[in-house]
């Protein structure tokens, strides 16, 4: 009897399986068919269809799709960045400001200081990793709440950006090489989309198939249990913050390459779409478990919906409201999914 019921678990609600080995006092919840995950996707698809009906096929065209993806490649990087710390059970608010710093540094070091592009990118990545290291040490060694630590570090990073740039946009003297890397196409698809593709493959492999990624998940699921199981939780958390820093820095390089200018005010605004994507991704593709693939898919879902808002001629102010609504909705859905799958609430 039990086997039959267990096999049914993806298709229909069924009675709890019982067996001789099931004892008293156990709380068992059964995974059921999840309409909710699909409901989210259906909501987006319905929205896309409505915009297409109103605005015509221009919105739903291949060109528009790739344009939106290209324009949001850097968002995918920041969203993936914050997802890694979320997987490890932490929170990184400095990823947005770090994107701004890395864009300014890449533009400034090449155009003003005249450093070669490769050295510049190396420096920028090291800066990202060091910021992550500082976050990680504040959280694991100084036992600061990640929210507070990364808010403070993010503020400091933003300050450095302003000091270095004097608040001025850098748009001249940026190496042509870099601009090409942001605008060229390969096989009809612009390079930034390829970068996201590479990010997707690498991030998926690291999170799912390396000891590091699996230990991130374990540390996020239950740090005390992970520690007793032999996982070096503190080290995993530091490494997660460093990976977040690296990806946020890469996001800065990507946006500079694509836009050809570095705006010192850029960055903090990206936290909202990034976290919205991470939480939306965790609710559409799994039972509230953060996944890099989910995050990247969700980034583009949100971006395409936001482009739809533009197409409908709505004021730009609507976009952050939409992003906020997606974040709240996704967090609520994630919390609910986790509760039902028997997990803990969202640590945020």
């Amino acid at each position: 009897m039990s086997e039959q019921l267990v096999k049914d678990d993806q298709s229909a609600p069924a009675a709890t399986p019982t067996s001789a080995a099931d004892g008293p006092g156990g709380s068992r919840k059964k995974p059921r068919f999840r309409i909710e995950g699909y409901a989210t996707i259906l909501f987006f698809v319905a929205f896309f269809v409505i915009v297409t009906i109103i605005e015509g096929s221009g919105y739903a065209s291949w060109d528009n799709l790739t344009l939106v993806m290209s324009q949001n490649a850097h968002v995918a990087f920041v969203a993936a960045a914050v997802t890694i710390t979320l997987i490890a059970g932490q929170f990184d608010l400095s990823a947005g400001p770090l994107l701004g710093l890395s864009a300014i540094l890449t533009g400034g070091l090449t155009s003003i200081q005249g450093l070669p592009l490769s050295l510049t990118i190396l420096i920028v990545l090291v800066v990202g990793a060091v910021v992550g290291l500082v976050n990680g040490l504040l959280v694991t060694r100084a036992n600061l709440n990640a929210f507070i630590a990364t808010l403070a570090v993010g503020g400091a990073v933003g300050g450095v950006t302003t000091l270095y740039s004097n608040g001025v946009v850098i748009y001249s003297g940026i190496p042509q090489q870099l601009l090409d890397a942001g605008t060229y196409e390969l096989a009809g698809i612009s390079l930034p989309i390829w970068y996201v593709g590479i990010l997707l493959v690498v991030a998926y492999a690291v999170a799912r198939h390396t000891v590091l990624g699996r230990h991130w998940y374990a540390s996020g699921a239950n740090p005390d249990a992970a520690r007793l199981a032999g996982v070096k939780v503190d080290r995993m958390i530091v490494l997660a913050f460093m990976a977040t820093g690296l990806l946020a820095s890469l996001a800065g390089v990507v946006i500079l390459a694509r836009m050809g200018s570095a705006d010192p005010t850029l960055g903090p605004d990206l936290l909202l779409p990034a976290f919205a994507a991470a939480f939306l991704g965790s609710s559409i593709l799994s039972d509230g478990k953060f996944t890099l693939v989910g995050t990247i898919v969700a980034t583009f879902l949100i971006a395409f919906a936001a482009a739809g808002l533009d197409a409908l001629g709505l004021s730009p102010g609507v976009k952050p409201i939409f992003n906020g609504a997606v974040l709240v909705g996704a967090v609520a859905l994630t919390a609910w999914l986790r509760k039902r799958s028997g997990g803990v609430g969202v640590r945020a």
Partner: protein
Amino acid sequence: MTTVLHDEPALRVSGLTKQFGGVTVLSAADLRVERGQIHALLGANGAGKSTLVKILSGVHPSDGGTIELGLGEAGKPGHLSFVHQDLGLVDDLTVRENLNLGTTVRPRRIGMLDHRGERIRAAESLARVDLGIDPETPLSELGLGAKTLVAVARVLADDASVIVLDEATAALTRRESSWLLSEIRKFTDAGGAAVLVTHRLQEVTEHCDAVTMLRDGQVLFTGATPPLHELHEMLSAGVPHAKAARKVGPVLARATGATALGVGPVDVEVRGGEVLGLVGPLSSNLYAIGHLLAGHLALTGGTVAISTSEGGHGVAAIVPEDRRAQGLLHGLDVRANLSVSSLGLRARLGFVRGAQEAADADEQVRLLNVQPAKADYPILGLSGGNQQKVLMGRAKLRDPDVYVLCEPTRGVDIGTRRALYKFIDDVCAAGAGVVVLSIDLDDVMAVSDRVGVVQDGRIISVTDIDSVSPDDILEHVL
């Protein structure tokens, strides 16, 4: 289901039956508790005591049988009150606040608590158990015996007609439990009745009027308290003690003057192929010794060394006492929960070998008979016993030389218990050393070759299991 009787006895349970997943854990059990009686409920682990208590307290529904209660004080319908081993008190609150926890709030004016009235009632409650303390004392300043009396005072204030002490004396010293039971005697002398669930036969012969002993879910004996040696015989005859013969190997774990916060100094050796049982009350900081041996506490002095056995690599694996808080990786599946400790061991260049991981997980699921037998099942979807099996499998996949098992069989049914005992026998036969820590002596006696008693974070004695009886340990050492 629970009906009220207008004459004796205080509590009558008839033909109570309970099955869990096709296994009968309680079969037509009767229990008759007279007014004025302290009635001991005895039996080995898995005999059905805790199931009976859980049915009485409403945690489980029964599959058959009746529970009847006699009239309480002043002809009011009687009711049952429970004092469990964890007492259900809050350390951060005062004694008065604890006494009022969960009782009806009686506001004097709208929304305002009647503090003066509360204080008076608290003092009265404490007087009933002869506890001469200020009700405003923080609970944390009391010893365990006094805390237990506070818990008893709380149920007395609740006008219970029958008090069930569910292992409430297990963590107390002999002097404390005598104190507690003499206060309970005053309650029964005034017409109340009490059921005492305990393993401590000495306190049964000293304080209880009648005994009901369960074995395999059935009543083995009920009647006036027999002499101590007869109780012993009845109880030990019920425990299948077919421990595998052990071949003891070299010392694998050695603690030398090891100290950590609140623990130690600990000096102990664990050999390959043997099970060292450690028992002590919760207040003894028992589990901290396990965590210390497994290398999870920062040492403030001394050493803990794990030697390498054949096929091992100098590692101690722990199965922690709090399954949910310290063991399970919430939100992940059975496979991820099994493999977390061994991913690094089996990895190639930092990459998890997926096929190996799946094969290892499937093997543990099969060996330990984890139900449902699906490695991709969410861990929190499993019953407690099956979750425990997963944690044991996780430890085994780590290829440890020493297993530190904290409360391995707590709250699991008899089928799981057998599977876990077999697990312990198997890893011992394979040459590993095992330490089992429990606050329940039966759990320790059932598997151990040597038994150590823990007090105040130290192991105060270690004895061979063959040369010691449970009462020796409980009555003379605790």
